[in-house]
């Protein structure tokens, strides 16, 4: 078999951590190659080296049989390597064509560029109008812009970092068709994802990283999601116990909740009705940017609404701020860990104080009891297996999964009556995700009500007792879990009503 990219002995160390150690694998032309691994396993560092964003400390890369050592993404693109990042780098106020022009290495006349965009997008089944503003596009369309930007440079290797985390099931299918077409035309694809099912469907081969080393190369079609996950984490996984709660009395009730947005790219919430009962996990699915962040802000108290729109134990609380709601037992964990759920530069003790002060009585007369806060932080760390040198470590220094365990643990251990979590396992490795889901289920089993907002349908299907879909700032009626198919949910996520 001929080889497009051949990597051997690649090593990269950062202060305090070896991100990649003696990594070796190869990619053939036209192959869809999966890169699998837990968070912190070294996937990002590896693709950054291939894309020229960081330089290896040791080791060799060969592309087309020639030595390949890019010192910048520009080098990489010139050699035929392109990358679509998980987080898009697009200017919302500019048009598709302008955004693509900004990412090109050479200047192209606007009209020529528009023609080329149309040609490429037609060839690969990626419909795109060059003159539309990015701000008006859906997330799936924005991703197309990123892909077309790469394809215009005629790459031989396309790196995709978690491309489906923001897409509806239908959009995922479209993306896969495009990727298969590219593969048929000889473009190799290096595909990074946490979603093991997708990898089994799409990828020809998989390289699995653990702690910076290659631990296995396999044919994903011959594996089960479970065996892949076990290779990633190096242990065997326990099945989640099946649990169907008998819902208790109503704790939180949203009635006609509406909130106009003053952000030009925000989402207006309109007419949301929802009832959360004791002992129940409620799941809300939806494509990112359909009002999830706004809904969480309304529930946490960051965005006040009319008093009667939110009732806890039938008491109107819509106008109360976050701390008043915490004292009543309504807690929340926003999606963005660094900067929203936690202050990145501050220690874990400080971050415990951030949300735990009221409910855990970490202050008297406004004076803070730092010892008690540190003890509570230690308890969270112990109970939720947060890997950190200590409670004085800044939140920024924790890996994504560990910080998420801390953030969820901090709220769960305050014994909330209602807990709202947004994307509890986003970007979290399989073992940590399982632990987080288990803790949320355990919380519900104690009689609390848990609201999980997520883009991971499998997660919602596994966890929820009742289920709703948010699209365009409107929430569908809740349905009992198990009474609704993935296809139906997909249509609802795309904005269509359920049949």
């Amino acid at each position, binding site marked *: 078999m001929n080889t497009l990219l051949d990597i051997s002995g690649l*090593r990269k*160390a*950062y*202060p*305090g951590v*070896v991100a990649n150690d003696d990594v070796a694998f190869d990619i053939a032309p036209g192959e869809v190659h999966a890169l699998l691994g837990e968070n912190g396993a070294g996937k990002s560092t590896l693709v950054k080296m291939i894309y020229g964003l960081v330089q290896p*400390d*040791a080791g060799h890369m060969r592309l087309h049989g020639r030595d390949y050592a890019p010192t910048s993404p520009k080098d990489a693109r010139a050699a035929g390597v392109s990358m679509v990042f998980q987080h898009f780098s697009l200017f919302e106020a500019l048009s598709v064509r302008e955004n693509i022009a900004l990412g090109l290495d050479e200047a192209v006349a606007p009209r020529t560029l528009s023609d080329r965009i149309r040609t490429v997008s037609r060839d690969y089944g990626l419909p795109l109008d060059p003159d539309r503003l990015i701000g008006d596009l859906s997330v799936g369309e924005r991703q197309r812009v990123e892909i077309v930007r790469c394809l215009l440079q005629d790459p031989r290797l396309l790196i995709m970092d978690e491309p489906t985390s923001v897409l509806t099931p239908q959009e995922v299918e479209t993306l896969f068709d495009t990727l298969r077409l590219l593969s048929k035309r000889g473009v190799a694809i290096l595909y990074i994802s946490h979603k093991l099912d997708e990898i089994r469907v799409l990828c020809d081969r998989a390289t699995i990283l653990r702690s910076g080393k290659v631990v296995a190369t396999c044919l994903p079609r011959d594996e089960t999601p479970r065996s892949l996950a076990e290779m990633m984490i190096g242990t065997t996984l326990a099945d989640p116990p099946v649990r169907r709660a008998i819902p208790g009395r109503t704790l939180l009730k949203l009635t006609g909740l509406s909130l106009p947005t003053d952000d030009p790219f925000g989402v207006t919430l309109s007419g949301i009705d929802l009832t959360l009962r004791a002992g129940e996990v409620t799941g809300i699915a939806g494509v990112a940017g359909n009002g999830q962040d706004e809904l969480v802000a309304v529930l*946490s*108290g*960051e965005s006040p609404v009319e008093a009667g729109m939110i009732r806890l134990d039938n008491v109107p609380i819509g106008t109360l*701020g*976050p*701390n008043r709601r*915490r004292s009543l037992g309504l807690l929340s964990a*926003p999606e*963005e860990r660094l*900067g*929203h*759920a*936690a*202050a*990145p*530069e*501050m220690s874990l003790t*400080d971050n415990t*104080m*951030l*949300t735990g*002060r*009221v409910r855990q009585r970490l*202050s008297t007369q*406004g*004076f*803070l009891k*730092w010892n008690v806060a540190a003890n509570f932080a230690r308890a969270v760390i112990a109970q939720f297996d947060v890997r950190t040198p200590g409670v004085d*470590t*800044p939140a920024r*220094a924790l890996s994504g999964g560990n910080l998420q365990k801390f953030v969820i643990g901090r709220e769960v251990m305050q014994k909330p009556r209602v807990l709202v979590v947004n994307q509890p396992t986003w970007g979290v490795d399989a073992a940590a995700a399982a632990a987080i889901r288990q803790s949320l289920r355990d919380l519900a089993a104690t009689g609390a009500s848990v609201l999980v907002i997520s883009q991971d349908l499998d997660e919602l299907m596994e966890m929820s007792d009742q289920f709703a879909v948010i699209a365009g700032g409107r929430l569908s009626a809740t349905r009992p879990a198990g009474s609704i198919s993935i296809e139906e949910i997909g249509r609802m996520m795309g904005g269509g009503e359920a049949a």
Partner: protein
Amino acid sequence: MIRLEPRLAPSRTMMWGTPVLAVIATMIAGGILFAILGKNPVEAIWTIFVDPILDPYSRDELFVKAAPLVLIAIGLSFGFRAGVWNIGAEGQFIVGAIAGAAVGLAFYGTSAIWLLPLMALAGMAAGTFWAMIPAFLKVRYNANEILVSLMLVYVADQLLRAMVAGPLRNPAGFNFPESRLFHDSAVLPLLQGMPGLTQYTRVHLGVLIALILVPLAWVLLRKHVLGFNIQVMGSAPRAARFSGVRPSSIVYICLGLSGALAGLAGLFEVAGPAGQLVPALPQGYGFTAIIVAFLGRLNPLGILAAGLVMALTYIGGENAQLDLNLPRAAISVFQGMLLFFLLGLDILVRYRIRFGARGIAQ
């Protein structure tokens, strides 16, 4: 080859090491500057940094100069931590002095123990009011507090000139633009007889109050929820909102607090060393305090040390002007260099320097 390598966590050693390095770098660069001016650099640095400490009279003056710097810088440090940039402490200092002086003059001749506290309250109220203008405009109209507070300095300066030339002018002062000399009850008592001070000391009650405020500010910052909220606001505004902090109240509190302390410092200046309201009262303390706040790492204890260092450059600078004929501007350049080096060296807090070829860490 020299490279900068990011640290895993900010270095605590360097956090407190860089101010010291900045002072040393300033001495070296200042020495070069003085050498170019044809002075003996060692003698000049000695005159500025060491002589004032050895001479008991200069040592007293050190405290007199440091007190307003420390007072103002402590107020500013709260705002700077929260990302509220009050650059107009000088203006709040001036209106504090005017209001306090006006109260003192209104009760001219009244001998009473309540007069000084009343003047202090007036000074703080005026400073707070002056700082509330940028606060209100920021919260209500999103106006930049840096510009508004800075521009209000010049308004305050003109107000001072109008006051000493008009309503507050000394009726028996031959039309000179200055107020009466305050009577005894309106002048801050001197701390004569305190151990360590000279017989003719100018160290006044305000210095003691500034000293007492240092630990209080530290407690507020480290042990109280308000100080915590201020720090979260500056470090991660969205996390602060999530935790229940209202950004507008932080803007009002930080500007109000720094305005009150700057106003108090103004009152201490007018009722202390000056003893009357004169147009030359503002000496730039409000601006120098910005350097003091950063040199002291926005930490009250650090600010106390930084205030003393900065006072040293004032006193030593004056001595250097007298003894060595150094130009006044050279001293301002010297103080500016201190902030310049501090901000430049701050990179060492987040990065470490690696010498030699690119190697493999650990």
